[in-house]
């Protein structure tokens, strides 16, 4: 017997979706590479290789066809998100550990593609920041210029992890500075330091965020994502950050700083929009995005970690099935009752 109706199919496939997501990451990656050097490309390669190998091993163990699933590109998307959220000069084994954990535990143990309740990349980030908090906070100092060879040596552990790596993300720097100063410094004073904080939110980092925004908008235009999650995420972040900033601008940074720093843009467009672990109903997506934005702010400002996007997304992943159940849209012909 032949395949059942419909006999006509739209030209679409999972691997094309994943390829387009990777393409959409390119502007952000380009800005990132311009900012910290080609090390990030090395990390992307390491993470991709680790992800594909882990995926292949797990598929082999389960007796699933290798070619079809490796080609779907989902492992590569996970790997790229891991590489982009980890510090660019993190040791290779840290990236590999995170990636393997993501693919094996968070993805394949649940049955692989499409079945994981948690975003694998964010699981990797959370696991590593809990297990290796120091390594996960070593960001290259501002203006650090190392040659490619030096960077690779640092990543591979052949060169000592230089003091220059004692930098932090603008978010972390701000948080630490505020804590150390214990009220004697205001956010406005800190932000005036353009060496660290650039024009808006972190020297160079703001351009990486802009790159992600560009890619995200392209994905929206290509209908790979809907507007709901990014809008709700950014909206919630702006509302809570703006409210607190208006309440006390000395203690709380302005919304623009929060939007363009840390993982906000990457989270809003590439992580929280993951349909597998996120919500799928329109209202559910709005709640998911808003919840993730709000939690990200709360955790990065009031909590114990430098950034909150990963935990926020994981926490919303937890809620996604229940939110979906509670936000089922009314169906054709049943709208009066709803």
């Amino acid at each position, binding site marked *: 017997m032949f395949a059942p109706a419909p006999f006509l199919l739209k030209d679409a496939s999972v691997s094309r979706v994943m390829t387009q997501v990777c393409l959409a990451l390119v502007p952000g990656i380009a800005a990132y590479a311009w900012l910290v050097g080609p090390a990030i490309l090395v990390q992307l390669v390491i993470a991709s290789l680790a992800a594909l190998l882990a995926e292949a091993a797990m598929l082999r163990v389960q007796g699933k066809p290798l070619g079809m699933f490796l080609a779907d590109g989902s492992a590569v998307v996970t790997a790229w998100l891991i590489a982009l959220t980890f510090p660019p000069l993190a040791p290779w084994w840290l990236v590999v550990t995170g990636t393997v954990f993501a693919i094996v535990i968070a993805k394949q*143990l649940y*049955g692989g593609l499409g*079945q994981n309740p948690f975003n694998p990349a964010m699981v990797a980030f959370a696991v590593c920041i*809990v297990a290796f908090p120091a390594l996960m906070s070593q960001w290259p100092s501002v203006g650090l210029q190392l040659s490619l060879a030096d960077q690779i040596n640092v990543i591979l552990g052949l060169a000592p992890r230089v003091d220059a790596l004692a930098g932090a993300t603008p978010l972390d720097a701000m948080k630490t500075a505020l804590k150390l100063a214990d009220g004697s410094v205001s956010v406005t004073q800190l932000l005036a330091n353009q060496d660290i904080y650039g024009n808006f939110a972190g020297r160079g980092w703001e351009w990486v965020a802009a790159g992600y925004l560009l890619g995200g908008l392209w994905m929206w235009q290509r209908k790979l994502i809907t507007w709901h999650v990014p809008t709700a995420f950014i909206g919630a972040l702006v509302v809570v950050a703006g409210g607190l900033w208006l309440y006390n601008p000395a203690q709380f940074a302005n919304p623009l700083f929060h939007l363009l720093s840390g993982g906000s843009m990457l989270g809003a467009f590439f992580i929280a929009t993951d349909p597998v672990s996120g919500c799928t109903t329109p209202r559910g997506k709005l709640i998911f995005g808003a919840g993730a934005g709000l939690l990200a702010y709360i955790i990065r400002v009031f909590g114990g970690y430098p950034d909150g996007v990963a935990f*926020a997304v*994981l*926490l919303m992943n*937890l809620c996604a099935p229940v939110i979906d159940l509670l936000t089922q849209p009314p169906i054709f012909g049943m709208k009066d009752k709803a």
Partner: protein
Amino acid sequence: MSHYLFILVGAVLVNNVVLVKILGLCPFMGVSKKLETAYGMGAATTFVLTMATGASYIIDHYLLMPFGLEYLRTLSFIVTIAAIVQLTEMVIAKTSPTLQQTLGIYLPLITTNCAVLGVPLLNIANGYNFVESLLFGAGSAVGFSLVLILFAGIRERIEGADVPVYFRGVAIAMITAGLMALAFMGFAGLDKYQ
């Protein structure tokens, strides 16, 4: 006022009784297969836990401490909890026999749920007053119900997933619980914010 808020938020999220304190895992794994059951169990546990914290505070402060009988705490708390559980079971048997049947052994086992005994003891260890005790008890109960319901939602979805044979059932549930605990670590430090 914010002090109370911190106790509440701390009990619900930051020091979640299941995911951070790792108490009450028996019903957490046992009755989280279906969302409907989880709602019932959450409600029952919330009721019992809140009542138990209040009752144990009164017993401790007005019956045991005046007579210097603190060593009877565990015993008298358990007796009180058992009575409250019994009462709850009777009410559930009357109102929803199916829920009673689906909760099964886990309903009477609330008696020995370490969360229910642990929270009143933690209250005393933390030196909370009556209102604080009630808040902490209610917060813990809400935290328990919250993660139970979210967990049940995820488990209902995983049930349809193509989980490798050796990980089906409790194994993947334990892994999921672990990842949930990981997510809840994100709340760490929230209750320490000045």
